[in-house]
């Protein structure tokens, strides 16, 4: 599947494969178009299986003609059968795709690896991004591994863990006084003034393609079959729609058969422009001012919102939102039933899954995959004060006394 052009998702105008992201005719977003290829399915499967244990095994479906050199290859994260969580929720077959198991502990390693490989191919010496943390970590780390200079722009009030886990890689970390949408606007303007590759601005068409690898891995890990339903967090809506594109590409190539899964989107109530538009029956999103603990999902003005709405409706899914308390409960539920500690975005996903289960929206016969996109240690504030520690003198008697007292009081 050789990439052939950048194509406008709205008016289908075509552009060369360089650093651009917006259609000059209608301002619509650009997407990579590929040459339709005829493959022998068995040969193609063997080629994929013989590839490296990460996203570059799927290089044939990414916007490159060869396999890029990447010292920090992400991907092939565990797909875990979550029977205890399924039992708790009254579901049948439930799987958790644990994408916290990436080099910088979030799915952003996938998109950044693709964007940085493209930046190098296009001859950029400096990469940059607007981020709320996960992307910042990934850009700083992958730039360091590739030997590129980097600038990372974040809201100045970001959690300390995310600032620290970005700065450690030796990037130029810039805290902007404002929210993510302010940072994003600044970067969109900077993009015109500096010769930098902004992974999520002028390289966005390539960057976004990296998310397709989550769909490919899911299919491969399920023995070349599809789930019936997926639950995916929505911020800009890019991950949500690109997972569908990944499934669709493999359906078209015949690498997997069946139907596109139902797509359930998950948002935090404090920033739910897509869930609100879904509930109201709108086909565009009204921007919101974010106010939620799920900062990694807090995009008030989601670029792919209209496409996410279309996908949820056409696939038989829907888009829901959950409160901050439900998010915290979701983090805990996942940890207690699967041993996976996720960040607030994962809490949004699990809480949405729980809500769907409670509502009876998921049949017991369905095979469901929930996408956990980030690591709990990055959002410690969400778990603070959520537990009790037994404190004792170092003796067996003290332990017995403490446990007895604790049992009596609970």
């Amino acid at each position, binding site marked *: 599947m050789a990439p052939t052009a950048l194509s406008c998702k709205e008016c289908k105008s075509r552009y060369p494969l360089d650093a651009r992201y917006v259609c000059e*005719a209608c301002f619509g977003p650009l997407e990579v178009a590929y040459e339709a290829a005829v493959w022998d399915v068995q040969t193609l499967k063997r080629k994929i299986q013989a590839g490296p244990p990460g996203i570059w095994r799927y290089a044939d479906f990414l916007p490159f003609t060869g396999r890029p050199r990447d010292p920090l290859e992400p991907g092939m994260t565990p797909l875990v059968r979550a029977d205890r969580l399924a039992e708790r929720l009254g579901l049948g077959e439930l799987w958790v795709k644990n994408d916290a198991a990436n080099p910088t502990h979030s799915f952003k390693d996938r998109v950044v690896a693709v964007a940085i490989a493209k930046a190098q191919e296009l001859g950029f010496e400096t990469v940059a991004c607007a981020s709320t943390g996960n992307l910042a970590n990934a850009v700083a780390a992958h730039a360091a591994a590739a030997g590129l200079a980097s600038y990372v722009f974040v809201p100045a009030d970001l959690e300390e863990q995310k600032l620290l886990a970005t700065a450690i890689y030796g990037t130029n970390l810039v805290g902007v006084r404002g929210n993510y949408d302010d940072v994003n606007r600044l970067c969109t303007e900077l993009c015109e003034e500096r010769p930098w590759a902004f992974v999520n601005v002028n390289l*966005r068409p390539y960057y976004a393609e990296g998310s397709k690898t989550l769909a490919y891995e899911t299919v491969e890990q399920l023995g070349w079959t599809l789930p019936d339903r997926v639950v995916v967090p929505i911020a800009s809506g890019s991950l949500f729609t690109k997972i569908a594109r990944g499934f669709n590409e493999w359906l078209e190539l015949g690498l997997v058969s069946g139907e596109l899964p139902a797509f359930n989107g998950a948002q935090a109530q404090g920033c739910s422009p897509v869930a609100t538009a879904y509930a109201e029956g709108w086909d565009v999103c009204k921007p919101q001012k974010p106010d939620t603990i799920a900062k990694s999902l807090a995009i008030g003005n989601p670029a792919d919102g209209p496409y996410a709405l279309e996908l949820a409706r056409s696939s038989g899914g829907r888009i829901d939102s959950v409160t901050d308390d439900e998010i915290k409960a979701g983090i805990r539920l996942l940890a207690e039933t699967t041993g996976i500690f996720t960040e607030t975005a994962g809490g949004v996903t699990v809480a949405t899954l729980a809500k769907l289960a409670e509502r009876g929206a998921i049949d017991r016969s369905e095979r469901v995959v929930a996408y956990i996109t980030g690591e709990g240690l990055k959002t410690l504030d969400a778990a603070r004060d959520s537990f009790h520690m037994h404190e004792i003198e170092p003796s067996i008697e003290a332990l017995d006394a403490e446990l007895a007292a604790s049992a009596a009081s609970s």
Partner: protein
Amino acid sequence: MAVVVKIPSQLRPATGGEGEVQVEGSTVGEALDAVFTEHDGLRERITEDGTLRRFVNVYVSGEDIRFQDGLDTQLSDGDEVTILPAVAGGR
């Protein structure tokens, strides 16, 4: 009101390369109309049936006009009206 409308690079072919246009207008809609009068090619790129296209964001002094009164948002002397594509993002 005299205001400055900032044109993103993707639209500059339609302004003869100009990145800023000085116009008069008491609302965003009036200011944009004044820009369209000078640079006719911009109208259909930014608007469709009299409303902004869905991937166009307009800011007045940094604030998205959808949080204000849209095209009816009032302007003051010296305001900066910025047009930007909405497709960036993903954090």
